[in-house]
Structure formats: C-alpha cells, structure tokens
C-alpha cells in the first residue's frame, strides 16, 4: 500500500480518506501511552502466529463454505416436497431453481474459494465436498424433473409426435353412386 494511494485513488473519488492505511499518519504524534516500538519489535513472531491463525481461520471458513450447499439442499428438498408432483408454475419454478443453483455454484467453484486461497490451506477437501454437495443438489433437481415427468426417459416421450407411416397401397371405392 503506497502512500497517497488513498488520495489519488482510482475511480475519481477525490475526497476519500483511507483511514485503515496507518502509514500516512506517521507525522501525527501517537496518542499518549501508545508505544509503536513494541509493536514493531516482535513483528516477525507475531506475524507468523497471525498467519497461522489466519490460515486456520481460512481453512475453517472454507469448510463452512463447502458445507453451505447442504443447508440449501435441505431447503430445496423441503420446497420440492411442498410443490407436489404435478406440473405447474410452482413446481417447475422450484425445480428449475434447484437445477440452476448447483450449476451456477459449480461454475463459480474457483471464485468461491478465492478468498481462502493460501499456500498452507488445503482447499481440495472443501472443494470436493462443495462439488459433491452441489452435484447432490443437481441430482435432486434432476430427480424432481423426472418425478414431474419432464425427462424423456419413456418410449412415449419419443414416439408421441411420431407421424404415421406412409402407406404403399391406395384403395378406395364403396357403394355405387346412386
């Protein structure tokens, strides 16, 4: 974080003051009783500790994120049960949202775990769990779709618009015209 970045910040925010940037306030004397030296002293040991805590926290968070779809799954299950098995607006809406959510979640798996990316944090586990749970959600959606009879899994779905076969012979006739 460079000096003055807060002042000349991108996007035309001319009057913004970044208060979190403590480097800019060096010329202002510290308040009484605050010793900056002690902070600077065990910076290295502290930072290691902090990093550990952070990675722990990240790992924890990652697992949490990974488990989030489970709640969603349960919720969806409940909604689906509510919607019943006949095709109408509710059930179709719910089914399609149940299909869409896992798909969009799966598309953004990388982005979802971006904040917890760390050399020390093992993200494969949470990611796999996340994917598995979302696949579960997807499966649930597909199952619901099938339960609604919207999947072409029966012969009837394929032949119902089958045009009649042409006939080779032509025959006509009847009683003599009176």
């Amino acid at each position, binding site marked *: 974080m460079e000096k003055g970045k807060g002042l000349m910040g991108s996007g035309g925010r001319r009057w913004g003051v970044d208060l979190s940037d403590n480097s800019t306030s060096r010329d202002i004397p510290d308040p009484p009783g605050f010793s900056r030296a002690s902070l600077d002293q065990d910076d290295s040991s502290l930072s290691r500790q902090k990093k550990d805590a952070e990675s722990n926290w990240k790992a924890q968070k990652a697992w949490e994120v990974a488990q989030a779809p489970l709640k969603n799954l349960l919720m969806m299950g409940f909604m689906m049960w509510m919607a019943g098995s006949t095709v109408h607006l*509710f059930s179709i809406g719910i089914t399609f949202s149940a299909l869409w959510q896992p798909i969009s979640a799966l598309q953004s798996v990388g982005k979802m775990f971006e904040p917890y990316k760390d050399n020390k944090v093992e993200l494969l586990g949470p990611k796999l769990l996340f994917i598995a749970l979302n696949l579960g959600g997807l499966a649930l959606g597909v199952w619901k779709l099938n339960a609604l009879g919207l999947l072409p899994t029966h012969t009837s779905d394929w032949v119902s618009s089958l045009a009649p076969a042409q006939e080779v*012979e032509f025959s006509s006739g009847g009683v003599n015209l009176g």
Partner: protein
Amino acid sequence: MAMAIRVFLTLLLFLISTHLTSSLYEDQVGLMDWHQQYIGKVKHALFHTQKTGRKRVLVSTEENVVASLDLRHGEIFWRHVLGTNDVVDGLDIALGKYVITLSSDGSILRAWNLPDGQMVWESSLQGSKASKSILYIPKNLKADKDDLILVFGKGCLHAVSSIDGEVLWRQDFAGESIEVGHIIQSTDEIYVAGFIGSSEFYVYGLNAKNGELLKKDHTTLPCDTFGELLTISSDKFVVLDNMRSKILTIKIKNGKISYNQKPISDLIKDSSGQAVIVPSRLPELFALQINSHVLLIKVTNEGDLVLVDKINNVAACSDALSISEGQHAFAFAQHEDSKIFLFVKDVSDWNGDLLKESIIIDQQRGNIDKIFINNYLRTDRSYGFRALMVMEDHSLLLVQQGEIVWSREDGLASVVDVTTSELPVEKEGVSVAKVEQNLFEWLKGHVLKLKGTLMIASPEDVVAIQALRLRSSEKSKMTRDHNGFRKLLIVLTRAGKVFALHTGDGRVVWSILLHTLRKTEVCVHPVGLNIYQWQVPHHHALDENPSILVVGRCGPSLATPAVLSFIDAYAGKELNSLSLAHTVAQVIPLPYTDSTEQRLHLIIDINQHAYLYPRTPEAIDILQREFSNVYWYSVEADNGVIRGHALKSNCIHIVDEYCFDFRDLWSIVFPSESEKIIATVTRKSNEVVHTQAKVMTDYDVMYKYVSKNVLFVANAAPKARGEIGAATPEEAWLVIYIIDTVTGRILHRMTHHGCQGPVHAVFSENWVVYHYFNLRAHRYEMSVVEVYDQSRADNKDVWKFVLGKHNLTSPISSYYRPEVTTKSQSYFFTHSVKAIEVTSTAKGITSKQLLIGTIGDQVLALDKRFLDPRRTLNPSQAEKEEGIIPLTDSLPIISQTYITHSLKVEGLRGIVTVPAKLESTSLVFAYGVDLFFTQIAPSRTYDSLTEDFSYALLLLTIVALVAAIFVTWVLSERKDLQEKWR
C-alpha cells in the same frame, strides 16, 4: 401449505375438466355462425290477398315444407317441415282461415291456422290400398252445418269436417278397383269419376250428406287412354288416347256418361309430334302441347273442340284465376333469349292481353318451371297481376309490373354434395385512403370494446359494440385470411345448380346452372351426383384458379351415360364440360396430382372399366408409376358381397389409352340368410393424423392402426332390416366388420345381439363410432371400436428412439399383415340420429368432437373422450389426471354443447367439417332444408386470442408501463444524484 396448494390445484384441474366444451354466450350468436332458411322447390302455391293487411302466399314444396311467405319481401311468416316420408299432395284453404294439407299418400289431413301456422287439427285417414290422393274443398257444401272437405286417398273417399277434422262419412272404393281421378260436386251430390284399367270409365254418384251411393254408370271408351284425365268444367273432361292422336271429351250429366272423340289432325295440320295435355285448369278450355307449340282448345257445350290459339315457345302456363264474376284470367310465359315475356289473357276474350310484360331474368335461373298468378286492384280500378314463378333452378321469383320484386334461392334447400375452395390470396397495394378510414374505424371500434371491457359502456354503446361485432367486414372479405376461416363452400343442388357460399356471412358469391345437368333430348332426367376438388393450386401453380369437378349422370339409372363439368372456383364459370360415352358407378380421386396440381381421378363404369381423368399423357405417366398400388373395392349391398380389385392393364375391348381393366383380387361374401349390409363407412381421404402412438397413463405406448385402407361394414339380420319393432330381439343382431380393403382381410368382427339398424357411423384415425338401436334395452346405443397395431408394440427401447434406430415411419404395406388388437365399449344414447361427423383440424393435434345431427334437427358436439374404451367405473388418480371420465352407462347430453344453439337445421341431411388453418378450429357446415355454418374449437382456441380480446387495453397497458418505466428511471437518476451530493 402443501395441502392447500394441492387442494387448489385439484380444484383447478376439476374446473378445467368440467368445462369440457366452450358454450356460447348470447351476444356471441351470429358472430361466427350463420343460418339460412329455405323451403325448396314450390309445388303448389295459393295466394291469400283478399283481406288488407299482411298479404301472403301459401306454398307447399318438394322438400315437404308448408310455408306462408310474405308477398312483399318473400320472407317466411311461418313454416312447417314435414317428415321425409310425409309428402304433401294437396294444399288448399278452408273457411278462409285454415290451410288444409293432405300428405303421406292421402292418409294425413292437417289444418293449420292461416295467420300464425299453428296446427288446428290433424286427421289420420284410413284406407286399404295405395291410390292417387285428391284434396277437394267444395264451395258451399254443407252436411249438418259443417263445411265439408272431400279427400280421396288410399282407395277411400272421406268427407271431413273442416271445423275439427272429424271424418263424417267414408266410402270405400278399394273393392271396385277403380283408379279415381276426379271428384265433382253438383249441389247435393258428389260424383267420383275414374278409370278401371285404361278404357273403362266409371262414375259414382254419392249423397253429400251421408256418403250413400246413389247411382253408378260406366262406359267403355273406344280406345285405351294416355295420361291424366283433365277437368274442363264441372262436368267435362278431356283425355288423350294411347296413340296420342285423338282427344276424347267425356261429359257427365246427371250421372250419365257420354263421350266424343276427335283426331288432333283435325285441329292442326302439323300434328306429327307427341301430344301432351298441359295440366292447367282453365274454364271451358284446355292446353295441348305438341313439340314446342301449345294449342289452346275450347270445348263447347255440345262437346265440340275449337282451336282458339296456337302459341310458340311456351315455358309454363298457370291455372285460371277468377278475377270477377264470369271473368277468368290465365297466364303463360314465353322465353326469348335472356328475356321472359309474361302474358295474362282473359279466357273468354282471347283477342286482347290483360297484361304483357317482358322481364329480364338471370340466365343462371334457367327456364320457368311453374307459374302462379294473382290479381290486385290498381288505383284506377283496373286489374293488375303479379306472378309467382318457379324457375328451373328451384328458385322462386315474384314478378310485378315487369320487375322482380323478390327472389328466393330455394334450390339451396336440396343440397346434394358440398366441397370447399380457398379464396384468392390478398393482393398488395391497398389504397391509403382505405387504410386511414380503416384505422379510424379500427381505433373507434377498439375504444368501444375497451369501454365494454371496463364496464363503462352505456346501453347505446353496448348496442353499437354488438352491431360492430356482427357486421365485421373482416369476416366477409373476398380474400384468404391468416387463420383460414374464410373459404368458399361450393354446393351442388338437386336442380343441377352449383352455388359458392362465403363462409363469413353465407352470401352467394356466384352460382351457375350447369348446362350438362339441364334437360335435353339426349339427357332426359339429368342428376348431379357428386362434387370434387379438381385442382387445388399450391406453391408452384398459385396463379391458377382452383377448379371443381361436378359428376352427373343422364338419369337415375346406373346405365345412363355420365356427364362431367369443370368449374372455375373463383369466377364461377364452366371451364369445360364432357358428355361421356361411358357410365359412372364410382369416382375415385387418387392421391396423385399432375404438374398443374390437377388431381387424378378414376371413373369406374358399370362394366368395371376405369377411365382416367384428366386425359393427358402426364396423368398416364403418373398412374403407370403407381400402377401396382392402386386398388379399388365395390360394395354390392343387395348381394351381400364386397369385392376387391386391382388395376390390370389397358382395356382390351375398348380402344382408349385412358381406359383400364381391373382384375378381381378378393371377395367377401356375407351369408345372405343371416346378414345384410346396411351401412359402410370409411375414413375421409384428406384426414390428417398427427401421431401414430397413443400414450397410456403409465407412459406405456400403444400404436394406432392408422391405415386409410379400412372399411367399416355393418350388417343386420335380414328380418331386422325394417322399422324398429318389426323384429323381436331374438331375431335381430348386428354384425360389424372392419376390413382391410387392399387385401380383403377382416381385421375385426363383432356381433351385437338384439340390436338393429339404422346404423350411422363415422370412421376417423384408428377408431369408428356407430349408432344403432338396442331392442333388448329399448334404447339407442353408440359403440366405439379402436384398432391398435400390435406388431409395433414391442418398440419399447428408449435408446432406439434416442439414436433414431427405429423403422416406425418407413412406408408400410397392407401385405405385412400386421397383428391388430381392438378395444371397444358401448353406451346408451338418448337421441336417434340423422348424421354423424367428426371434427377435422389442419394438423390433427386438437382433440376430436363428434358432431351428431339429432332427430330434432340440431347438431350436438360430443367429446370423443366420452367414447373412450379405456373408461372404467373408478379411474385411478393418474387416469383422472389424464382426462379419463368415469364410466357411465349413457352418454351425457349437455345442452350447452349444441353447436346450433337455439336454431334448427330443418330437414338435416348432412354435416361437413373442414379444417381451418388455425389448428384449434374446425369449420362446420350442416345442410338440409336449412343451411347452418359455424366454427368450433373442440379444445378451445388455445392458439389464438379470442375475438373479444381487447387490443386497446393491451396497448394502453404497454403505454402505461413504458411511461412508468421512464418516470421511475428519471426519479431514480435524480435520487442517485442527490445521494452522491450528500
């Protein structure tokens, strides 16, 4: 919550399924339907103009209609359509207030109230043998204060009271074997005159009070007679001898007969032609027609014959009309090119004309067939005459002062066959002024409609809206519309006239009296048989007009030669006509067309030769290509045989490359002692089937047997062919067959015990529905048979379909002999039926409705779902959801589903359905004495907005939404800005 939703959904489903058909609101009547009332060809006409007030003419017609018409406009005051077997023989007025009709071969006498047509009384007259029937209302003949009506019918003379129709006395002539020809009244005595054989002339004198036989005389005429006896006056008759060269004059005086004879050659030098006595009743006079002349011959009191006048080219003569004491007028008409000369002459003063008029009459009306005259008093106290003319095309004209006052197209009461034609495509370049005017009208109309929708319309507005809807110019345009509602209905009438009716409002677009179906020396009694679409231009022949083929025959017998006419469907002009050397027994439109979209037709004569039309080499090429695939079957109902034939080669005995011989392939001979063919029905050749599969509730698939080469045959027991009740249930049975007409294979056979005809049936897709009488249950029944193709049933592998590896759409042949199964079910049905049809739609996707012409001359639409063999007493939930109705023993008749709503199509004979371009809609035309047309949507109009949809409201909503979006956008921008400044 879930429960609530489910309950709601079930309720919704229930509501949808209960509204099976779309009934009509009162203000929708006449929007899409039209109804026209006709009476048919007039046989008798009586004017009733004595009293001031409503002047009317009473008519009876060949369609067995008794009607009273307004003389001013030709509208129907009242009308009664008697049954098809109730032929009206006599019409007269009694007591000045009753219209008396004699019908059913002189066995039913009815009196109708003259002003309103209410029936006053009806008498059934008994008799033992069939005879000529005569209605005679004598003037001032009373028996016990009752005015008498004398009726001769079924070999009996009846005297009927005109007040209540009570038979006062009757005299049976059945034992005398006399053919009674006339009833003569002389004060208190009644004479009955007639022949035994053709030369024994008898006269019986009866007491008018009690019918007692007073005297009897007979004489043997010197020669046999020809034709009818004609009365000249109350005691004189004329008749021709059987050589048609002599006129016999018979005179009766006090019951004594005397006669004179005179050769026609004494009256006129050139008497070479066949003489006929014209049946016009003239006092002291009769008309004799020889060749094209009419001789008017006066009979003197001594019985001498004096030639009064000779007139050329007479088309029709009227009866004499008594205009004042001792003065009688008589009218006849002459044709000259497009003009008609009408003469009215005084019978006793032959030199002057009472009236001479020339009238220009549309050539398409043909010659005058009958003429009836009536007089009226002009302001200058002289007599004026009006003439009612029945034309060759059965239309009715009233002529007065050289003008046609009104005309009625009553030929449309006897429609023989119907087909349709598309209208021309709309041309581009509509004038701007028209559009502007239209735009304004359009906007005005929609504003009115919007008012109606928002319920702010005043009563005047409501009337205006209704008027706007009814006379929408949109529906009667002469161009093709996007939805295919506008078409031409082309009808062939019994008179040999072809009419094109617009489906929008039913008006006659053009009409043509076909000269091939007019009486000529070669073709004495021509009859029109059928009408076919000859050329239906599609894509590459769009600039040509469609044309129609009319097939006729020179007489009622099968052995008379055939005539063909080709008519341009847009212009109504005859393009070509052919008088063929061969006969016509069958016309087969083939499913092939040539390069100009002319359909190939085979005409099969009684010697089983087939003649190909059009007679072009190209047509032969096309037929040669399909030579081995063209089959033909003949149903010989009298012998109980159905034969199948196939094309063999060019004719051997006839040198004509368009003539082909057939070879017999198969025959089905029904046992004549137990079965008689009473009905056959096949599928319509132009029916479109959407799919071959029928999906069952459990996602199972059944394959329909949708062959077009199937024939439904209904056979009845020989004893049970007659009327219902003639046979006991034990001797009655009905056997139905479904036969493949290529191979002659019987696909299905079923016997209904204790049932009998008449059978009315309709075949569509893979099912047949038929209507018959169940003698055991004393009720009518309807049965449905559905045919399924079992040989395709094992096509159940989904992956085959996913990969497209199935052969369900490859062409099939009847020779594969597919296994079929059938499902059937029977239901009671309350009505007896005149005709059954089924709706047809453009793609065959829409569900079907049966259109049943009931005995009450209405058309009932019945969902095919009611005739579904899968109906059970307790359908499962899944079946219910699919729309299967719980089984009931009888079919419901829901009064809202009468498509004719409150109207009657009197004398209903046939129903025709035509698909519109819009898939949901089917056009229905019902014909009989009346014509009725409507559009129906068996599954409602799911593919279009309804007619009363408010476009203005939609527009308004859109404008409001856009405005709201704009306003909110501005507001949000402003708010954003304020937010930023904060």
